[in-house]
C-alpha cells in the first residue's frame, strides 16, 4: 500500500520508490519489512527517524548507503539512479557516522593520517605522499572547532581516543569532502549522556555550517524532537508519523512519548 507523502518544498534530493525488502526470505524467520515503501527527502532538510526495534529505521539507512540491497524498487539521489551502485561507490556522496565509535575512524592510524585519507576521498590512492604537510593547518583548524583539544594531538593513534572524541572525529571525517547526504546511524547511542550532548551539538554545528542534508536515526526521543526540521516515526516498515517544519516545532515531547509507547506496546516491548 502506498503511503501518504508530505509534499517536498522543492525537488527532493533522495527518492526511495516502491521499495520491497524481506529478510530471511523462504525461511521460518521470514520478515516482510517493506512493501511498496516510499520516502522523499528534501534538499537541505535534517530528518530525524525514531521507531521501535525492527521497525525498519536502520534498514532505511542501510538501503540508502548500499550496505543492504533492495529486493525491488528504486533509489534516486540527485537525479541519479543509485539502486545498483555499490556501497563504496556511494560513499563519494553519502557520508555515514555509525553507532559503533570504532567504525568511522581507523584505530591503528593517527588522527593526522585518518584526516589525510578522508581529505582525498574519491580521489586516486597511488604513491603520492600519504600526508600532505601543507594541509595540516587546515586539519588543525577543523579539529579546533570540536573544542576537544584534538588539534594538539595530530600524531596520536585514534584507537586511544575516547568514544565521544572518536565520534566527533568521525563526523568531521564523514563531512571532510563535499557530500550530498549525511547519515547518522544512532551515532550517540554508545556514548555517555554528557558526550552524546556534545556530539549532538557538534552534529548541529557541522550540518548547519556545511549545509548538508542529514538523516538521523536515534533512540533518544528528546534528540529527535529537539533537532532537525522533520520527524519520522517508523513502525513495522511504515511511517506512522511524519511531521515537518512548524508542525514538528510545536510537537510536545509528551505526545511523542505517548505515541512511541503505543507502538512499542503493540510489539510487546
Amino acid at each position, binding site marked *: 500500500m502506498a503511503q501518504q507523502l508530505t509534499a517536498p518544498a522543492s525537488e527532493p534530493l533522495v527518492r526511495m520508490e516502491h521499495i520491497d525488502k524481506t529478510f530471511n526470505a523462504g525461511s521460518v524467520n521470514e520478515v516482510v519489512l517493506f512493501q511498496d515503501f516510499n520516502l522523499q527527502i528534501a534538499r537541505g532538510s535534517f530528518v530525524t527517524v525514531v521507531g521501535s526495534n525492527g521497525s525498519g529505521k536502520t534498514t532505511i539507512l542501510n538501503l540508502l548507503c548500499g550496505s543492504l540491497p533492495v529486493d525491488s524498487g528504486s533509489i534516486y539521489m540527485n537525479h541519479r539512479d543509485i539502486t545498483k551502485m555499490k556501497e*563504496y561507490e556511494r560513499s563519494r556522496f553519502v557520508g555515514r557516522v555509525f553507532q559503533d565509535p570504532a567504525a568511522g575512524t*581507523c584505530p*591503528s592510524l593517527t588522527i593526522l593520517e585518518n584526516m589525510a*585519507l578522508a581529505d582525498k*576521498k*574519491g580521489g586516486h590512492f597511488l*604513491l603520492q605522499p*600519504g600526508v600532505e604537510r601543507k594541509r595540516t593547518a587546515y586539519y588543525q583548524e577543523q579539529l579546533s572547532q570540536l573544542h576537544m583539544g584534538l588539534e594538539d594531538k595530530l600524531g596520536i593513534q585514534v584507537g586511544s581516543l575516547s568514544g565521544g572524541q572518536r565520534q566527533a572525529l568521525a563526523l568531521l571525517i564523514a563531512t571532510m569532502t563535499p557530500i550530498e547526504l549525511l547519515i547518522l546511524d544512532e551515532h550517540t547511542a554508545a556514548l555517555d549522556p554528557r558526550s552524546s550532548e556534545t556530539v549532538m551539538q557538534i552534529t548541529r554545528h557541522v550540518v548547519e555550517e556545511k549545509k548538508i542534508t542529514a538523516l538521523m536515526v536515534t533512540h533518544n526521543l528528546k534528540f529527535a524532537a529537539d533537532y532537525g526540521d522533520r520527524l519520522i516515526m517508523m513502525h513495522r516498515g511504515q511511517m506512522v508519523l511524519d511531521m515537518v517544519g512548524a508542525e514538528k516545532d510545536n510537537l510536545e515531547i509528551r505526545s511523542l512519548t505517548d505515541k512511541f509507547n503505543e507502538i512499542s506496546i503493540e510489539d510487546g516491548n
Partner: protein
Amino acid sequence: MDIFLGLLQVILREGFIYGIMAVGVYITYKVLDFPDLTVDGSFPLGMCTAAALISAGVNPWLACLVSFAAGAAAGAVTGLLHVKLHITDLLSGILVMTALYSVNMVITMDRGVVPFYDLPTIFNSGLGGALHTTLDQWGWVLMALIVCMVVKLLVDLYLKTRSGLLLRASGSNAQFVISQGKNPGTMKILGLMIGNGLTALSGCVLAQQKESADIASGTGMVVMSLAAVIIGEAVLGRVKWMKPTLTAIIGMILYRTCLTAAMQMGMDTNYLKMLMSIIFVAALVASRAASGRGKHNGTAVDRTRI
C-alpha cells in the same frame, strides 16, 4: 672461535635473506590481518623461477624482478579467490599453495632440485662479486644485508604513501576504506601481491646464494615467517624508533639463531620442522602473555589471532 664466527655468518646471511620474506608476511599478517598460507608455495616459486632464468642466462637482477612478479601473481590469485569467490582466507591460501606445487614442477621441468653452479648471480657478479672478493664469506652477508635493507626501506616508504595508508586502514577497519569510496577487496589483493612478491624475492635471493633451487623448500615457510614477525614484535615491539619491518627482520635472525643452536647441539635435521613449530608456539604464547600486560594499547585488532 672460527666455528662461532662461521655460524654467525650463516645465521646473519640466512636471517637477512629470509628476512625479506618476514617483511612480506608482516604486510599480509599484521597490516592486512590476513593469515596467508600461499607463502609455502610462493617461496619455492621464487627459487624455481630464479633457477630457470639464471640457467637460461638471464641477468640475476632481472631474475629478482621476475620472481617478485611471479610471487605477486600468486598472491593476486589468492586474493581473487578470497575477494571475488568468497572462499575463506585460509582455504584460498591452501588452494594456491597446492596449485603452485605443479607450477613449480613445470618451471623446473619435473626436477626436484635444480643446481646452477658457476653462473652469474647477485652474489658472485657485479657488486656482490666485488664484496665477495674483498670480504670472502662476509661479502655474502653484506650483500644479503644490502638487499634486505633496500626492500625494508622501500616497504617503509610505501606504507607512508596514500596507497600504503589505505592498505593499513583496510587491515584495521575495512568499513573505513568503504567510507573513503574505495573497495577494501582491491586493497586486500594488493597487499597479498606485495607480501607474496617479497616472499618469492626472498626465495630467489636464497637460490642465488646457494646456486641451487629446491622445490620442497617451501614447507614451514609460513610458520617460520609468522614466528619471526611475532618474536620480533614481542622482543622489540616497544622500542619506539624501530619500525615493525625491522623488528620482523631481527625476529627472523633470532629465530634462525634458535634453529642453528639446536642443530649445533646435535639435533637430527629431520626434527627441524618439528622444532620450527615448537618455537612458533612458544613465541605465540609468550607474545600473548606480553600483550596481556599492555592491554591498553587500544588497537582493535587481536594481534595473535590466527
